[in-house]
């Protein structure tokens, strides 16, 4: 029936929407690069003090930093992707228009967010990563298969990231104001994704816990696959399970929301 073409069109729209703001993209590249440099020095000092922390050597720690800067906007780790627009539309009541469309609500927003992710990756993420590779020693694989597996983990990471934020956005059906939940998304995203410190460098039981939470699928898994620190099938399975579970939960919540909640109107 060719409905996939609809979602491709939505994804292309998401891509182009972000591609419009070139100066903002350049500014983002600059900021991510500056933060990357600051973080790299602190990590080098940390790994100097304690070599092989979390099983990484210094080059791997550096690689982790630059991958984090590359994925920061790509995976909307502190929020600010499709969920922001969705919350706005629920608050204003425009969501009624979306519900009328002969398209699946969740797939629609997933497609739009995938387009955004792809642009943020290509436009904003790749340059700081290359900068890091040029000016700092990094641990990058040479086999094509590792890079291919890495790309698959990135795709899965983007889906998990969306699924978390979609769940959060739906809460606006009940809470109306998305401010508190956006803040919660930001705090959990920044802390549990390991953008502050690699999750495998977290101490003791906390380290064990954070590595099984869904946020571990965002940065830690792609990083470990890229650097050969974890088995590829295991990483895929971990990410895929969280993606399916969270997307299914999103579907459940969505059907509850659309059945029971009165749309805001004006």
């Amino acid at each position: 029936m060719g409905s996939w073409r609809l979602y491709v069109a939505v994804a292309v729209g998401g891509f182009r929407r972000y591609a419009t703001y070139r100066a903002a993209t350049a500014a983002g590249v600059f900021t991510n690069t500056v933060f990357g440099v600051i973080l790299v020095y602190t990590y080098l000092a940390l790994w100097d003090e304690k070599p092989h922390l979390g099983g990484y050597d210094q080059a791997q720690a550096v690689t982790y930093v630059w991958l984090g800067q590359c994925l920061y906007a790509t995976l909307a780790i502190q929020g600010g992707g499709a969920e922001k627009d969705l919350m706005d539309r629920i608050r204003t009541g425009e969501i009624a228009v979306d519900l009328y469309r002969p398209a699946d609500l969740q797939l629609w927003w997933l497609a739009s967010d995938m387009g955004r992710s792809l642009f943020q990756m290509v436009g904003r993420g790749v340059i700081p990563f290359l900068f890091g590779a040029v000016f700092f020693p990094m641990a990058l694989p040479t086999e094509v298969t590792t890079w291919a597996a890495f790309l698959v983990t990135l795709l899965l990471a983007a889906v998990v990231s969306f699924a978390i934020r979609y769940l959060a956005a739906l809460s606006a059906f009940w809470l109306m104001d998305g401010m508190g939940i956006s803040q919660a998304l930001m705090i959990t995203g920044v802390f549990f994704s390991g953008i502050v410190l690699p999750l495998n460098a977290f101490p003791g039981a906390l380290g064990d816990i954070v590595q099984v939470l869904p946020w571990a699928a965002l940065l830690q898994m792609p990083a470990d696959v890229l650097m050969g620190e974890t088995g590829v099938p295991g990483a895929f399975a971990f990410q895929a399970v969280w993606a399916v579970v969270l997307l299914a939960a999103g579907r459940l919540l969505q059907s509850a929301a659309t059945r029971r909640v009165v749309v805001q109107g004006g």
Partner: protein
Amino acid sequence: MGERSAFAEGLRAYGLIAGMWVRSSMTYRTSFVITMLGNGTMTGLDFVGILLMFSQVDSLGGWSLAEVALLYGLSATAFGIADLVLGSMDVMGARIRDGSFDTLLVRPVPVLAQVGADHFALRRLGRITQGALVLGWSLAAVDVDWSAAKVLLVPVMLVSGAAIFCAVFVAGAAFQILVQDAAEVQNAFTYGGTTLLQYPPSVFGKELVRGATFMLPLAFVNWVPASYVLGRPYPIALPEWAAFASPPVAVACCALAGLAWRSGLRAYRSTGN
């Protein structure tokens, strides 16, 4: 006399506009309290990161946890004050784009006061509180032979540091007039600056430290004066009195930022709505 009264008028206007934003945020008290707690938690994550690092090591770049906490507390509190006073300036780019910046220009009130107080957010007290807590703890925990000069340096660092960060915000706002969409560049210097200063200078490359001392003198927010307080050598070769140079450095930064702001305003071209 003219200059002086314009300044007083600007302050008064700033107070009025900020008061209006505070009243509006107080309409939803619960939401205000929650967002303030959230603001404090969010900014506290940086310190949690430092604590996590110190759960694995005893020192970072040769500095102990209490010493790093002192740097962190000074940087976060000084930045928090600047963020409260002028932190909403990143909405200026949006105002320029939608043309509402023109409205500010025709009002008989200094534009900087209006822009600075725009969207004044009292919830940013969260960051200041969190920074002050870490600062208080570190002051009790560091092993320092306190003298009158060292005690005096602590409030001097906070005030000068806040002024230096305010200058960065104003310069960033002037830059936004030129490139409206690129507001994020200033994050590299504001948020990036405070993050940089939360770590010991010994961690960073000499070039970076030199740049943060002579080009953008962030080192005078805490690195240099805090080194004096802790009895450590300065991050780069500087005379002994450099620890007390923060106030004049802050004044010079504010003067330069003021000049940048004026020339930015003069270069402003309306979008023409």
